């Protein structure tokens, strides 16, 4: 995946797209976790969510660099 992508002739950093993608992914995970009550198994759901997001985004970003 290139580091910069031209969207409608505007150069957009690939990281931004990955960021949006991670947000969507996290939203999906969040929806599933809420649906099945998985957050009950976690001590502090918001911290868990934030940490998960950092992991997902960081992991994906490693694909670029």
């Amino acid at each position, binding site marked *: 995946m290139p580091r910069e992508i031209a969207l409608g002739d*505007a150069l957009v950093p690939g990281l931004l797209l990955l960021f949006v993608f991670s947000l969507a992914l996290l939203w999906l995970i969040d*929806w599933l*976790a809420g649906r099945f009550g998985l*957050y009950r198994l976690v001590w502090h759901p*918001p911290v868990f*969510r*934030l940490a998960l997001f950092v992991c997902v985004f960081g992991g994906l970003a490693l694909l670029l660099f």
Partner: protein
Amino acid sequence: MSVDATAIVSPPTRTVVVDTLRDEAGVWLFVFKTLLAFYLTGWLAMRFSLAQPSTAMLTVIIVANRQSGMVLAKSFYRAIGTLAGAVAAFVIVGLFPQQRELFLLALSLWIGLCAGGATLYRNFKSYAFVLGGYTAAIIAVPVINHPPAVFDSAVARISEVLLALMVSGAVNDVVLPSRMRDVLRRTARAQFAHFIGFVQGSTGGTIPRDAMENAHLRFVRDAVTLEDLRSSVIFEDAEARARSGHLKLFNQRFMAASTSFQSLHHLINRLQRNGQTASAKAIIELYAPIGAALDAPIEAGAAAAILLPRLVAARKTMAARAPLLRHGLVGPNAVRDFDTGASLLLRFVEELHDYVESAASLQAPRLVLRTPERVNFERGNDFASAGLAVFRTTLTMLVLGMFWIDSAWPMGGSAMLIATIFAGLFATAADPVRATRSILAGYATGMTAGFLCVFFVLTRMDGYGLLVAGTAPFLMVGLMLLMQPSVASYGLGGCMGFAYILAVKNPMVFDPSSFLNDVIAQLIGLSAAAIAFIVVPPAIGSHWLRRRQLERLRRQVTLAAEAPLAGLRQRFESVNHDLFSQIVAQTAPGSADSRALIAWALAVHETGGALIALRQDRLTHRMPEEVDRCIAVAIDALARFYERPDSAGYARTRDAVANAIDRASAEPSARPLLDHLHLIRLALLDGESAIADYMSPTPAAQESTHAS
């Protein structure tokens, strides 16, 4: 006894101290979290070398709230509004890059339309509209002399705002969050307990009319509060989001059950007033098993589920008891009254059972994996007041824009921006003139503090740590003020003025003359917004709007009589509740206006509910053309009467309904419809309801004895 006495005397001081401390701790927690988000955003914005870190920091102040869910909800809608505004700015600049008059006209219209749209929504959805309006101005106005820069301007604005939203969202969600989920849970539980308790307490029979009015008020407020809370809590809690549909259903069933419950009690009251004590007694007796079934301790946990089998049993008892009671009545009229009450009662038990069932499924620790039927809480909106907001905002923008062009004032754009922001923000406020005035005062104070801070403190500071140390004390004062309900808008103005005028940049610029020019522009812009609210006063709270809302409320009966039936019950109930709560919020409690409105609301609620039930049964029961036509005439007459109430219309309606009843009672297939018709008729003949004014004295008295 003595032990008790000391126990009563000693806690107060302790509880007072503890309560105060807890309260204060909450306020300080808010201040701390907001400052953390504020400086974190500023630091990140500078690290990313964004054009205006101060915009990002200002955003943090604007979305600051004590409740995490509120911050997240507001952030969500703010993000949507910002993106929409950026697109609009793009389009407007693209259309009129060279003609400043057309450009300003288009921009003013867009902002006005957004302000109008904002009045159509409650909650933060209206905020998204306001944002969409002024973001376009913020992006487009600075580049008016250099249109190609609009893309950069839009990107900068979007990144600043989104950065701020993400940081303050994360900080508020992660650092010692204060959750509204618990408030929601408590509210839902209190609503349930109150309603069950009220139903159980009133099985004894009559409730006086003012108690009914109060109960209705309370039911409506409960329903609307729950809906408002739900729409914010879904942002902070994934589980609440998953249960959102259930919660909506729970609320909808609550409204349905409370409507039937009220109809039932109005009926009993009417029967007793008309001297039909035998049938009233029979209905009350039929009603007793419900009271017994609900007589279980309602506690946390699985309480609602306990009630379900008891309600089923009560329904069986009632079904067995009904023929006996009916048999004991003398005369066709008494039997007919009883039948009406019994069918209403059966409907109520059905709805109560559904309500308790959804409460039980909400309380269950595991979510039942079954998508509940989709229900929506619809709002009753007034498009005329939205039009007024469009007119006012557009006018303000045009006047300021013309002034800007004619005077070639360098800071004209800045004044125009701030006027836009506040003309939009307060279009939905109850008393915008006062709100704008106290914001204006706060703004002036905040900017004075900003002056002191920038030129006497920050000039001696170096580095981000010292910037924080130099500005935090000023901001703390503003944030503390923001938390005091009496001076909240003053505090908000103070914080916003301070954060705006601070204009933190990297490197920092110290320029007293442009600072003062900006201060003047800001104050003029804000004053222009205040003047606009005086010149074109908002419709909210005015006599005119109240009359319109009352008309709208009455037209709900027309809606119940004419709109397509699919989902009509829910639509009717939720719009009714929303309209009613708007009206109640905008009239002084106990005033003549408010009493008249409540009386109308009760009449509309009852008749509309019965009409919908009638129309539903009319679909499922085939009957001769003749009877069907009579019923259609009666429904139409009711709709016309509620649309435009007068004595002639009243007489026409009364006769049409009487005629329909006569025809229907001769026809066995129309039997179930008869109950609804009879209920409508009794409501029409009620001498204590809002429509009593339209009864001509003598015939009404005859009619009422004849009918009963």
